[in-house]
């Protein structure tokens, strides 16, 4: 049996609205994944560092403040600089369609907008991690 998928759920930026992040973290845990939740107000550096330390296969970024265009590219740059592009990045929150397309062009695996179902997110993570194998564990 494959070891459980390891996911870092992170809240970057100044936004304190953590309802979504917490619900997702719990849903992923209930789906059998190992979930590390960073807590609030993490800088891109803190997030990538935590992803490295925790050896995760997936980073989930929850952003509701509209600051995604400033924050997400910095996370992607840091992953690139650390040779960690095998880590899948998914973004959840209030991200308009146009911005979502732009984020995907920069390497984000998926953007989940309001109303996305928990099962769809779980399935997406399972599918995308299986594609690249069971990870480095």
């Amino acid at each position: 049996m494959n070891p459980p998928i390891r996911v870092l759920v992170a809240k970057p930026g100044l936004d304190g609205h953590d309802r979504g992040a917490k619900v997702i973290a719990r849903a992923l845990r209930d789906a059998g994944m190992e979930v590390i939740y960073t807590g609030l107000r993490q800088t891109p550096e803190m997030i990538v560092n935590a992803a490295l330390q925790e050896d995760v296969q997936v980073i989930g970024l929850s952003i509701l403040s509209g600051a995604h265009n400033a924050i997400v590219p910095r996370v992607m740059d840091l992953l690139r600089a650390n040779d960690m592009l095998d880590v899948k990045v998914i973004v959840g929150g209030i991200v308009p369609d146009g911005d979502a397309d732009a984020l995907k062009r920069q390497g984000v695996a998926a953007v989940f907008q309001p109303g996305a179902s928990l099962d769809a997110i779980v399935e997406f993570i399972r599918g995308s991690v299986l594609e690249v194998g069971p990870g480095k564990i």
Partner: protein
Amino acid sequence: MDMAVAEKQHTTISGVPIEPLYGPEQLADFDARRELAAPGEFPYTRGIHETMYRGRLWTMRQFSGFATPEETNRRYHYLLQQGQTGLSVAFDLPTLMGYDADHGLAEGEVGKCGASISSLEDMEILCRGIPLGEVSVSMTINSPAAVLWAMYLAVAEQQGVDWTAVSGTLQNDILKEYIAQKEYIFPPRPSMRLVTDTIEFGVRHTPRFNPISISGYHIREAGSTAAQELAFTLRDGMEYVEWALERGMQVDEFAPRLSFFFNAHSDFFEEIAKYRAARKLWAHAMRDRFGAKDERSLKLRFHSQTAGCSLTWQQPYNNVVRTAIQALAAVLGGTQSLHTNSLDEAYALPSEQAVTIALRTQQILGYESGVANTPDPLGGSYFVERLTLDMEQAAGDYFQRIDEMGGMIAAIEKGFPQSEIANASYVYQRAVEAKEKLVVGVNAFQSEDQPIELLQIDQTAEEHQVKKLAALRARRDNGRVRQTLDALRRAAEGTDNTMPFILDAVRAYATLGEICDAFREVFGSYQETAHI
């Protein structure tokens, strides 16, 4: 089909089971004189005024703010021309967190969720052309509330308006930040001291200003049930009362200026019951627990806002209907002022067109629907009275548990309200996932979305704010800024009321970030333990 109906469990959106029918048997021991009395009479279940909206409609107060203070000021003038009767300022995240627009952590966030205010200069621009002696202004600011309030009072001075004539509301409710919204800067106890400073300052200098708006709104948005929203909010209120009494104020000196803010969510009757129970519980707490004598201390006055978390990204025009139903619940529940959300707010801050429809929704309720003709029109309904009693009971149980923990700060430090809310929000989300709770357009009746026009806030707001701030830092008397900040630091270390010191710093054009840094040095910063 009939089988399915028979087996389906009927619950409120908070998960409270509902009986097939309500009649006299559900109100067997109900004493209408004791539980209800008349509108304007203790325990105010039916409303705080004898005539309610016959005397005066609720205040239609749309919360707004975006980008620069210049642009927000233009929106305020527009809203006042459209018949809005009060202003309500939304600040951006850097402002809410006590950072200037040019701080590293503000990058990408300036003006996104509200107006960017870093100094007295920005507040002067925000209030330009608005007579502060006539228009009441509500400010949604918490951790740095004392600083923004000082800026506002300094602008009133410049306009030649006496502070005794200034009216409005400061949100200033730090407890719900630790519980739900998480926009805190300092640890709970020094934060409570700042809140108590503003209450005390208000009692002495601004008799028409509400120094605090004790808020359940954010607790509900974070996923609580209606009963949790009610219980945690009122118990927060009691905590503020205890701190003010500890400071040496008399209960009837400050209690009449305490105000509240509740969510108007989608479960129509549950919400109405919540407001009615809130008035009753507060009246009893103030009289029986704190010995208040002044009638005004017993009356719970509240603002309400329709539920942002109920708005859907899918089929956004449906949000107009949701908002109208929620607003009706707030009005039938006897609200003193109301914000109706705009149809596009699941996407962005509202466009001018969307906010106009939201305001018109209130005007239609107030002037066309007839619901304002008589107080508490649902009073005496078997169903509404039963729900009100149950709501009161559920909140009372929470009061007891929190009292046993040693009060709200102790409960927050244990993570109690936080985990109650997180559990409730997970249960709800699971129910949506299982289609036990239907959300039109999201997990039922899906269809292709119609695109809508959105308000865009670009990077120019940030550049504008940063440039303005650099010019201010170069222009002002920096010696005086240092002096006032030193004095403020010393006051924070001692026990004096900090408001006069904040006012001096603000008048010298010390920035929000500089003032909050002075407090950070003395009080430290708060970091919560993250639980899933």
